[in-house]
């Protein structure tokens, strides 16, 4: 699936494009690619090229850097402060804060909204981002801030989103978070996580695309064990994928 590493400026040869099963389906360009009419596609990120012939999609895999919000990503956010209409949340350090409206929780009304203290964690979905230029963005608002939601916009159900109580958060690489979420059919990437964790343990977990995993396995010891296994799996994966060796120091 993954071919050679692309560098920014490289042109994608037509041979590398996925052979769509359904020719009427348009080709979807994912992150890291740019289409120059009529037929040139160039990379503007470095990384391996991934294609998906089923969806007729093509993108460049990129692991690292800072998390950039995209609509419908699942993320773990920290509440910073509460305002009349919404909470301000942080997705990652040194990035602009995001908004989580008080009413975007399951069955929340003006009177029965969850009270979240600064520092609490929520598992949420990105509802909209300020930038509408991105190709994958389906719904964009003109709001200058990224907006989050904890309900499914059509059903009004939480679908596993909402405040996270207890447990511990671990930082993982963005690529690993994406991989965990991609594999799982259910929400929260729990299936993806289970592939890396030995069977026979019960635990709750939530994976955020912003590179954070929340784990609660009941006891402190189990939580630490699960969390460390995830982090180590991330480390192994990064090691194999990028061949990160010792930085030469002279």
């Amino acid at each position: 699936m993954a071919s050679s590493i692309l560098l920014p400026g490289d042109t994608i040869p037509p041979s590398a494009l996925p052979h769509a099963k359904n020719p009427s389906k348009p080709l979807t360009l994912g992150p890291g690619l740019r289409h120059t009419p009529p037929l040139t596609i160039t990379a503007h990120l470095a990384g391996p090229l991934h294609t998906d012939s089923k969806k007729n999609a093509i993108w460049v895999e990129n692991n690292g850097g800072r998390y950039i919000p995209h609509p419908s990503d699942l993320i773990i956010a920290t509440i910073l402060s509460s305002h009349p209409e919404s909470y301000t949340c942080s997705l990652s350090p040194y990035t602009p804060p995001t908004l989580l409206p008080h009413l975007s929780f399951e069955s929340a009304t003006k009177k029965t909204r969850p009270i979240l203290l600064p520092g609490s964690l929520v598992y949420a979905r990105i509802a909209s981002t300020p930038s509408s230029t991105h190709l994958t963005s389906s719904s964009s608002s003109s709001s200058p801030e990224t907006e989050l939601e904890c309900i499914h916009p059509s059903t009004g159900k939480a679908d596993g989103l909402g405040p996270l109580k207890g447990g511990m958060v671990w930082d993982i690489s963005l690529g690993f978070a994406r991989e965990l979420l991609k594999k799982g059919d259910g929400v929260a990437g729990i299936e993806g996580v289970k592939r890396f964790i030995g069977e026979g343990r019960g635990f709750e977990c939530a994976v955020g695309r912003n590179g954070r995993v929340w784990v609660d396995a009941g006891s402190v010891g189990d939580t630490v064990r699960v969390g460390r296994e995830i982090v180590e799996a991330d480390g192994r994966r990064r090691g194999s994928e990028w061949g990160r060796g010792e930085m030469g120091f002279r």
Partner: protein
Amino acid sequence: MPREAEPSLNEREFIHQALREQTRIDGRALDAFRELRLQFGDERGVVDVRLGKTRVIARISAEVVAPYPDRKFDGIFTITTEFSPMASPAFEVGRYTSDEIILSRILEKAIRRSSAIDTESLCIIAGLKCFFIRADVHIIDHDGGLVDASCIAVMTALQHFRRPDVSVEGENVTIYSLREREPVPLSMLHHPLCITFSYYDSGEIVLVDANRLEEQTREGEVIIAMNMHGEVCQISKFGGTPVDALVLLNCTNVALKKVQTITKFIQRQLEEDMRKRDVGGLMAELSAENER
């Protein structure tokens, strides 16, 4: 607007709870250091210290200058610290954070004021010429324990460093280049190291070598600088939740053990590096001297 990530409530509570159960999130014992790795540069006096994810590079350089007029018989030794924005977005160029001030002050007190270097030995001609030894500390990656790592880096680099040999005939000073004469090690009086203790629950729980997350959630810290002979070179507890005096005394006992272990580790690494450099057998006698 954008700011440093504060640990979430969940993290704070979990870390506290785990510590009460004698567990640390990275699986260490409460009084265990992270893995310490030393890497020496090709040049003498360059050391790359890694303590877990924290990484500090120290470099020693020497030049010949005129001594301070009020200290005619002493050489000059300074330590400068550089928090590069590389280590953490919290650091900005040209702005001193209190972390940086504390780090530079503690290194100053632990190493320079405790006279780890015999500055008199750096004097070449009284009042006219002396060596100016400069230790530059660069923080490359910040995951807690900066003071401990920087102190290890400076002390190791000082022991690794060799200054050019000089000879004095009356007023004439000859400074020999590396080829002319084997450079000489600095004369060290003792080897102080810093151990930072982080405490929780008013001193009920005391940790050694906290990582960044633990540092952000702790109630206070005590930094103790000691050498392996049991001499305390400085203690700093800048406020924080008050703890019992006995806890602090206990810390000095733990610090002594840690300092002894780390000092031995540094010695071993230095010797190993010496062996590597000594492939040709040219420096046989020097390495013997170094074993002292």
